[in-house]
């Protein structure tokens, strides 16, 4: 019997491997994963927004605005540098530096200190001296805004003509065409109206920064007019609370850690689902071909229906495992090639799936899930005469299977103990997905063993009923598989 099962499985594997769709699907995931970051970095618009400032009030206001946005950029750089140092334990580079102090929201004074000590370049030199091998380089983001000088033509225009000229600049094809123009009138601050011309909807962060800077400036002037000296007014304006920040180190926060730990388990559940859908549809195609090409009778003269069914399941399982092996290999190569960030991320991500017991459990639930669900595809293939007829039965099965898995993944990402997760763990159809996905959250051993045992019983029962359905359906061409007929075939004994 086993020999025939292996022969059928081998033929199934060869048939699927001969399909172009198999190779396309096999390669599409690694290619997508490889191209994804490239596309993302291409699509990410990290170019600074170009801003033209026209300050007819003397130039101090424009300078204050520029200083404000530069300070914001430096604060962001300081924060990123601090997280980098914290993640890779690099505090020894300069224990007194502001960027090794991770417990605060950086104030203007911190930024001034950072600049005074040489800024990011000086910090990176110190870090380089202590940075171990394998720690990736620090990558800073571009500043958010770049300020360009106004053309002389724009400087001389007033009213509507100024607006039209600004619009013309926005519409020009030049690479350095500005995206915003800010006009500060000659009567500022008596007339505090500021003109903001923008190529698109203005960025709220920019508007908010602009407003805060100008508000501070106006209030300082107002305080001075009430007899308070400029220095005192400035001190009042710059009075800010020192916000102490307590945050877990990168990857160490409860939710962040949970997400990292759940990456591999969720990927396993997702890959199981993906490869099942793909190999299931190929197996279905093979079954439909056997029926529509009328070669079942020739086969059944040589082998038992059960051997045919088991061979198909084994063939599908082998193809599915092959796909996963290739995808896993690609992921391994990517991790090895990139080392640094990815390997640093993968280490904690692999932690929940690295013990021998868990690896065995993964293999068991993976294979059991494959058999459980592939058998349904094979049964559908045995009942229908064409792929279009098969689609009609396949859609409800796929939807019924996938929707709860989608909710399951969302519940796991939310990191909450959910009744849905518990429920799906105990329903054999979703047990493999639920158990695999829960490995990151943590699943009790007894739950895993009991759910696995229940799954094994469900597969045995399924094999009995689907075996009957398969056997009874094989030679019945031209009969619509109505619910009544399907139920009859579930009960059918060998005729």
């Amino acid at each position, binding site marked *: 019997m086993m020999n025939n099962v292996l022969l059928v499985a081998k*033929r199934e594997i060869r048939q699927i491997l001969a399909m172009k769709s198999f190779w396309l699907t096999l390669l599409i995931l690694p290619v997508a994963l490889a191209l994804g970051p490239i596309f993302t970095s291409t699509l990410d618009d990290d170019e600074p927004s170009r801003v033209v400032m026209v300050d007819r009030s003397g130039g101090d206001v424009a300078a204050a605005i520029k200083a404000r946005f530069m300070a914001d950029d430096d604060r962001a750089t300081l924060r990123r540098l601090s997280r980098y140092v914290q993640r890779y334990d690099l505090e020894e580079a300069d224990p007194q530096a502001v960027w090794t102090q991770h417990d605060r929201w950086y104030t203007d004074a911190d930024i001034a200190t950072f600049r005074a000590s040489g800024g990011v370049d000086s910090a990176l030199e110190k870090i380089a001296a202590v940075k171990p091998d394998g720690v990736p380089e620090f990558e800073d983001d571009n500043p958010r805004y770049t300020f360009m000088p106004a053309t002389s033509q724009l400087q001389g225009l007033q009213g509507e003509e100024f607006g039209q000229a600004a619009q013309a600049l926005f519409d020009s094809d030049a690479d350095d065409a500005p995206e915003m123009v800010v006009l500060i009138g000659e009567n500022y601050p008596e007339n505090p109206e500021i003109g903001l011309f923008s190529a698109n909807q203005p960025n709220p962060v920019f508007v908010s920064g602009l407003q805060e800077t100008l508000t501070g400036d106006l209030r300082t002037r107002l305080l001075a007019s009430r007899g308070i000296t400029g220095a005192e007014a400035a001190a009042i304006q710059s009075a800010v609370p020192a916000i102490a920040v307590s945050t877990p180190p990168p990857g160490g926060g409860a939710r962040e850690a949970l997400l990292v730990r759940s990456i591999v388990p969720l990927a396993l559940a997702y890959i199981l689902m993906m490869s099942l859908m793909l190999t299931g549809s190929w197996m279905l195609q093979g079954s439909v071909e056997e029926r529509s*090409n009328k*070669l079942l009778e*020739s086969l059944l*003269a040589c082998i038992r229906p059960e051997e045919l069914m088991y061979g198909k399941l084994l063939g599908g399982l082998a193809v599915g495992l092959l796909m996963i092996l290739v995808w896993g290999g690609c992921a391994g190569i990517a991790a090895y090639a990139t080392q640094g960030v990815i390997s640093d991320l993968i280490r904690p991500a692999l932690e929940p799936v690295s013990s021998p017991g868990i690896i065995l459990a993964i293999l068991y639930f993976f294979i059991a899930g494959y058999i459980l669900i592939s058998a349904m595809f094979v049964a559908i293939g045995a009942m229908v005469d064409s792929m279009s007829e098969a689609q009609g039965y396949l859609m409800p099965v796929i939807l019924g299977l996938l929707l709860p898995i989608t909710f399951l993944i969302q519940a796991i990402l939310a990191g909450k103990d959910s009744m849905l997760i518990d429920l799906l763990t105990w329903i054999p159809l979703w047990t493999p997905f639920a158990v695999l996905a829960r490995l990151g959250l943590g699943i009790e051993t007894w739950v895993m063993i009991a759910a696995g045992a229940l799954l094994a019983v469900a597969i045995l029962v399924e094999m009995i009923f689907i075996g009957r359905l398969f056997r009874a359906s094989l*030679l019945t061409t031209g009969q619509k598989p109505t619910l009544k007929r399907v139920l009859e075939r579930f009960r059918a004994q060998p005729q």
Partner: protein
Amino acid sequence: MSVLQVSNLVKRFDNVLAVDDLSFSVSQGEIFGFLGGNGAGKTTTLRMVLDIIRPTSGSITVLGGAPDRRQANAIGFLPEERGLYSGMSAIDTIIYFGRLKGMSPGDARRRGMALLERFDLAGRAKSDIGDMSKGMAQKVQLATALVNDPQLLMLDEPFSGLDPVNQGLLEAEILSASQRGAAVIFSTHVMQHAERLCDRLLLLRKGRKRFEGTLEEARGQLPASLVAVSSSDLSDIAGVHSASAIGEASDGWQEYRVQLAPGIAPESILEHCSTSGIALRRWDERRASLHDIFVHMVGEEGSNNDE
């Protein structure tokens, strides 16, 4: 030696009696014709012999045992509805079926190539079935049935869809299998093939056996007829059912169409004429064809029913 023995076989599908108390046997080297109209139960019987379906009652002995897939190694089967994997090459298809019948890959390949050579398809051994004509694909399927040199070869409507050249090739394969000692059973609607090939025949009607025996024995089931020219009236002879004159008599000689009573051999009437001094100028016996026998025994039975 009996290769296949069927005894009191009954198969019922719900309320339909497909095979009704059928018994027959087929010996080594014998070519056995399985004749009957559509829905007579031929395919159902063959499926029971192959253990694809199980009988309601009765027994089947194939190659000395009950039907079982383990006997597939010694059985060749060509179903009525034919088809192969379109993406598989001719030789791989034959090897696959050979392997399913327990052959080693090497033996299956050698035998498969020999068969393709014989069927003038050696040059297309590596062609996909989907790229072949229907006739070529049918020959490949015949090769899948013959690859294991079966002791029992069962062919269900093997001539349907074949052109005259390939029908001749198939006839030669059937005779060759029989000559090497295989029992061959084939069902057919084409009586000429059965007449030419079969050692014995079985006629089925609505699942029930109407006749089993040789062609001569089958002919004996129909009243004989003949055309004779005589100077005497032939209708008075004992054993003659009717003798009707054809045309006008000429110089006292009359042509008769003579229908004999059932079971009466023409030779006995000829002998009677000779001994009784009845002058005869012409004596043409007309032998019943298998077609006549089939129509007589099976008649106009449900020709559109499924089996």
